[in-house]
């Protein structure tokens, strides 16, 4: 199959059906393919007029909306890479991200502007800011462009023709050094993945795809680009609706979603609290989940509630996008105790399982999964050493991304996921480096020692607990601690629980004894 060379070409394909609804919001706002083409063209022209060139980065700090989708295509058409940040994350983190990859411009909601300006000034970085009075229905973006156009017209320019290896977007994930790191993904990385989705799922033009994941999360790549490519409709689900199981269940039914994709945690919540029996989910035909292990009990209950759907477990870190997948058997296995495997490597990729010395293990033995092929990232922005460490290079010169996940081949030729080799966990599908949380805690003057552990939890999946030893006090206010963390970390990374110690337990070699801390529960 011939891959599209540029990600934004996927939207131009939909020009054949200009009246088709491309994107819908939960309040019923919608934009057609033709309108989306025109609005994103205006973003492109404005970005070029304010000095954005092919190869630049452009930041996005907007609520998930039609405005955001149009901005993404506009940025790509200008030849730049989009850098979406978590709209709910603290300004310190988002300012760091924009300064770190030196965005030339940023499209942001006005309510974030003052806080961001302060952070960028501290970092000594001054991008051009396009300020929107809100985000919804594409209206705020159109108003912003109208105002700028009235003040100074932007000439119409052709869309960029990026090379396949040019960057399309940078997604920042939790970094073990205490700062988020930017995963650089190219047009080929994305189009190759979207093409794989086309082959595997064969979407129809009359389908309605959910977009549940936030746009700074890699699940959004499938959400945005697959329906656009096939002329199907993308239905945006905002943050508040996305975590309320009762309202969300009703919405999935009423919006006649045909294809669902999310982390398992919200699906577990839907099964437990969503009153699924109250609604008709007949249009839903496909359920994709990724980002963490789906507890088998909740998954089986979901399948009894939605027995007519096909289920797929998609696996892959942001660095590889999806790299393995498993189609669940049609028969529900009520007596199954183990989670389903992560499956087989996607057709255009290659997998390798290595031991700690980098030697390929025998089939069936445990080892770290490494992936090579067109979905795999170029590296981390501005971090050549971290990039180097992230890859395993075989004698033939081939570079394999080391996922950090320990797997083993089962008897059916599928990879089973066994655990992590480092201190990264998944919470609500998000990557969380426990070391980044510790680095944050160590910035507090009263904290002498900090050790963060993850404990299994039935509803949260993983519970993050911080063990602390303080300077000159036995304990401190949880409220004060959480407020401090909220200045530096996104909400999902703030520890759920804190425990106080005179001193943290140590191993015989003088290191923090994490095993003992975990046993404390």
């Amino acid at each position, binding site marked *: 199959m011939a891959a599209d060379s540029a990600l934004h070409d996927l939207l131009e394909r939909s020009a054949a059906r200009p009246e088709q609804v491309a994107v819908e919001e939960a309040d019923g706002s919608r934009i057609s393919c033709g309108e989306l083409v025109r609005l994103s063209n205006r973003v492109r022209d404005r970005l070029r007029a304010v000095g954005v060139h092919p190869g630049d980065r452009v930041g996005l700090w907007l609520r998930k909306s039609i405005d955001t989708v149009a901005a993404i295509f506009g940025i790509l058409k200008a030849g730049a890479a989009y850098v979406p940040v978590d709209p*709910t994350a603290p300004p310190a983190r988002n300012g760091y991200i924009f300064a770190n990859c030196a965005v030339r411009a940023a499209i942001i909601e006005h309510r974030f502007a003052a806080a961001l300006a302060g952070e960028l000034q501290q970092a000594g970085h001054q991008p051009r800011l396009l300020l929107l009075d809100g985000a919804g229905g594409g209206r705020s973006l159109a108003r912003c462009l109208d105002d700028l156009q009235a003040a100074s017209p932007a000439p119409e320019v052709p869309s960029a023709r990026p090379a396949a290896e040019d960057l399309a977007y940078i997604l920042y994930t939790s970094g073990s050094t205490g700062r988020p790191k930017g995963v650089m993904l190219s047009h080929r990385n994305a189009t190759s993945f979207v093409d794989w989705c086309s082959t595997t799922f064969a979407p129809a033009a009359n389908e309605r795809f959910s977009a549940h994941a936030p746009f700074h999360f890699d699940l959004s790549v499938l959400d945005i680009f697959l329906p656009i490519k096939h002329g199907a409709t993308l239905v945006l689900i905002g943050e*508040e*609706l996305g*975590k*309320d*199981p*009762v*309202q969300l269940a009703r919405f999935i039914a009423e919006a006649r979603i045909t294809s669902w994709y999310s982390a398992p945690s919200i699906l577990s*919540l839907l099964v437990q*609290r969503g009153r699924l029996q109250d609604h008709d989910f007949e249009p839903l035909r496909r359920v994709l989940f990724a980002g963490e292990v789906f507890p088998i009990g909740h998954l089986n209950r979901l399948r009894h509630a939605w027995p007519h759907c096909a289920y797929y477990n998609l696996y892959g870190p942001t660095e590889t996008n999806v790299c393995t997948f498993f189609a669940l058997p049609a028969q529900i296995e009520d007596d199954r105790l183990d989670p389903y495997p992560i499956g087989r490597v996607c057709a255009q990729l290659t997998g390798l399982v290595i031991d700690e010395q980098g030697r390929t293990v025998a089939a069936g033995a445990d080892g770290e999964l490494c992936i090579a092929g067109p979905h795999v990232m170029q590296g981390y922005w501005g971090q050549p050493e971290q990039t180097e460490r992230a890859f395993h290079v075989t004698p033939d010169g081939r570079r394999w991304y080391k996922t950090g996940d320990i797997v083993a081949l089962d008897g059916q030729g599928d990879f089973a996921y066994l655990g992590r080799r480092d201190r990264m966990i998944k919470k609500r599908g998000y990557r969380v480096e426990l070391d980044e949380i510790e680095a944050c805690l160590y910035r507090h003057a009263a904290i002498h020692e900090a050790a963060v552990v993850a404990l299994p939890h039935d*509803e*949260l999946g993983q519970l993050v607990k911080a063990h602390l030893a303080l300077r000159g006090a036995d*304990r401190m*206010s*949880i*409220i*004060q601690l*959480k*407020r401090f*963390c*909220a200045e530096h970390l996104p*909400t*999902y990374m*703030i*520890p*759920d629980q804190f425990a106080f110690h005179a001193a943290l337990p140590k191993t015989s070699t003088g290191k923090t004894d994490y095993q003992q801390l975990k046993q404390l529960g």
Partner: protein
Amino acid sequence: MTASNETAAIVKQFILAEFLPGEDPAELTPSTPLITTGILDSIATLKLVAFLEETFGISIAAHEADVEHLNTLADIAHLVDSKRGG
């Protein structure tokens, strides 16, 4: 005690007992952020909404169960009192 103060006091007791055991009550002020600090995560927010609906005999819509309406004790008291007729 005004209605709002009384409502805030009841909600404060609930939040301290359910989600902040051992906390100094003086630290939980009417303006302490609760959702943006993770003191109320999504499951805790669902529990809070159920508590408010049951205790005060009101109904809270999905779009109200958000950071704008529930982030502080003052916000919560305002929402509850507006539904109880002030």
